[in-house]
């Protein structure tokens, strides 16, 4: 049965209000959407980062499910241990319930410092879902570049300077990297398309084995936009092909949302201060290159989908 608003409205909040996230934070919306789908029998493990910091300042917690935080780079490894403890104790009859295991990390904790632990957990085949909320920089420490930072973006360690206009490297295609681990389910989602996001979480949790999702997480502080435009920007990311919504189930690509009409990527870029410097004559080439790459990737996805790969 598809997930609908009437059902969601009645769902208990497991990531509860009172946390200290910034106004307009995309990641908190993502956490609510994920947790409403996952339900009460879920154990969460968090990497150090924005969401960990804002949700569990002792003696308070925003979590109404069991929650573990260990360090920055090891959420996947720590949850591997939790999941194996579960297997061991269930085998001995000490636990009866079926439990979902979800690890969360930002793009710093996932694409960069936590990549090794993540890769290890995926390869070992643990029954867990790893979700990356990807806001494209180290927002917790003050907007430093990550390997998820988009081409051309300004961050505090890839500033739009007089000589070097922002980050001039491509973002890592982590979704494809994890898919190459031959795991049963990998997906990209956006909080603007909540139904798509929640269906993906639901599907992921119904599959046994390692699952991975990257979810675009607009950040008003790091992307430099007004706090009321989070969902609008997330939607534009999808409509401009900047953030394709797709899944790879048992190695087969499927684009889950295909906008009827695409918008130019400038619509997405111009709303954000981190791309402001691109709208000048001398930096126009960056937007051109970005467009070219976005189109190439979209075409590639279409071809993979058509070929049933």
């Amino acid at each position: 049965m598809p997930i609908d608003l009437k059902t969601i409205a009645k769902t208990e909040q497991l990531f509860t209000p009172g946390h200290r996230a910034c106004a307009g934070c995309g990641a908190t919306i993502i956490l609510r959407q994920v947790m409403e789908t996952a339900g009460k029998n879920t154990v969460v493990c968090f990497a150090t980062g924005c969401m960990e910091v804002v949700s569990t300042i002792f003696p308070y917690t925003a979590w109404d499910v069991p929650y573990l935080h260990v360090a920055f780079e090891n959420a996947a490894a720590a949850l591997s241990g939790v999941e194996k403890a579960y297997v061991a104790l269930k085998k001995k009859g000490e636990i009866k319930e079926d439990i979902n295991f979800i690890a969360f990390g930002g793009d710093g904790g996932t694409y960069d410092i936590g990549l090794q632990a993540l890769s290890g957990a995926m390869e070992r085949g643990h029954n867990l879902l790893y979700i990356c909320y990807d806001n494209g920089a180290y927002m917790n420490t003050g907007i430093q570049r990550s390997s998820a930072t988009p081409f051309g973006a300004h961050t505090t360690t890839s500033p739009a300077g007089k000589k070097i206009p922002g980050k001039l490297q491509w973002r890592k295609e982590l979704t494809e990297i994890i898919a190459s681990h031959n795991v049963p389910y990998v997906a990209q989602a956006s909080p603007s398309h909540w139904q798509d996001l929640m269906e993906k979480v639901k599907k992921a949790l119904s599959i046994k084995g390692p699952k991975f999702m990257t979810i675009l997480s607009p950040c008003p502080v790091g992307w430099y936009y007004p706090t009321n435009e989070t969902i609008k920007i997330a939607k534009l990311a999808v409509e401009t092909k900047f953030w394709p919504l797709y899944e790879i189930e048992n190695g087969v690509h499927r684009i889950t949302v295909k906008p009827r009409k695409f918008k130019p990527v400038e619509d997405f870029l111009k709303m954000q201060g981190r791309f402001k410097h691109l709208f000048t004559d001398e930096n126009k080439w960056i937007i051109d290159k970005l467009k070219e790459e976005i189109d190439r990737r979209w075409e590639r996805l279409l071809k993979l989908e058509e070929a049933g790969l």
Partner: protein
Amino acid sequence: MKIVAKTANEAMAEAMRQINPDVVAAYPITPATEIVQIFSSFVHDGLVDTEFIAVESEHSAMSACIGAAAAGARVMTSTSSQGLALMDEVLYIAAGLRLPIVLCEINRALSSPINIHCDHSDTMNVRDSGWIQIYSEDSQEAYDSVIQAIRIAEEVFLPVMVTADGFILSHAMQRIEILDDEDVQKFIGKRRSPYNLLDVKNPKTIGPLDLQDYYFEHKYQEAQGMMGASNVILNVAKEFGEKFGRYYGLIEEYKLEDADYAIVVIGSTAGTAKETIDEMREKGEKVGLLRVRVFRPFPAEEIRNALRNCKKIGVLDRAEGLNAFGGPLYMEIKAALYGDKNLPEIFSFIYGLGGRDIKPHDIEETFKKIKDGNVEKINYIGVRI
């Protein structure tokens, strides 16, 4: 009970089989590789119920141990040297979260230069991480201490590392008394854990952010845990001794009672030292040995009582402090004795780095230097200068 010939690696792996932990997450590293390897075959042959996680690094090994222990499981691992160094960050977290994890550590020198042989630089590097540290003189002790460590960890709620000297013990065959499986199970009892992350009906947040208002209190509690650990270690050792006939303390005194000159060592060197002392005693030399078995918590009072009547003491460190002052054991022994009225003279000796052998002759020479006061600020045994 049965008598077998086993290396320390084999003996520690055997202890792990008998303990039959719920989860083991480990990564192989020389000279501790065999422990992981032997244990893997126990898992694959169905001799244990353990879920074994063959992780991709030691950092992930300890992280997975933390996750499993937080989930209420009985958890063990093994490592050495660089592996322990890579774990450093998460060792502190395991202790801070008060998780009763037991680690079989094989002492090996730290890089650089890279070296696979014994010294204590690896475990000295993490001496302030909140882990209880128990050093073994021989394989029997390594085996016995691993079994005791489960009880200690689950009573104090602090993790415990039991160490054995790389190659010297890890790869040397010794006569060992192995307890019966049922006796081990009876001795360790039912697991005790501080939390149960898997209790979804009573959700708890583990590992939250502490700021200025709580961090200090939690660290204080952790320190109190370490403070109370000595009694627990002694009680567990006493019970072990009464049941199985082998007694252990925080320290071991050897012919110290009337000794004018003493050396202090950690680990397998104690065996060589005892032999040498016996020979020197026959020649009428009043020499003795103090072996520190439990380095964390540091048994300062016991050490003070054992050494206070000596005239001169040489502390032999199998680790360089690289502080231009003295080895880590030396500094703490000296601090433990400070304030005594007739403070013995205490000298720092560094020996055996990177697996350099220490022989009876070296120990005799060291005693001679101590006696004659023929010493430098820091003395090196057996190094080409």
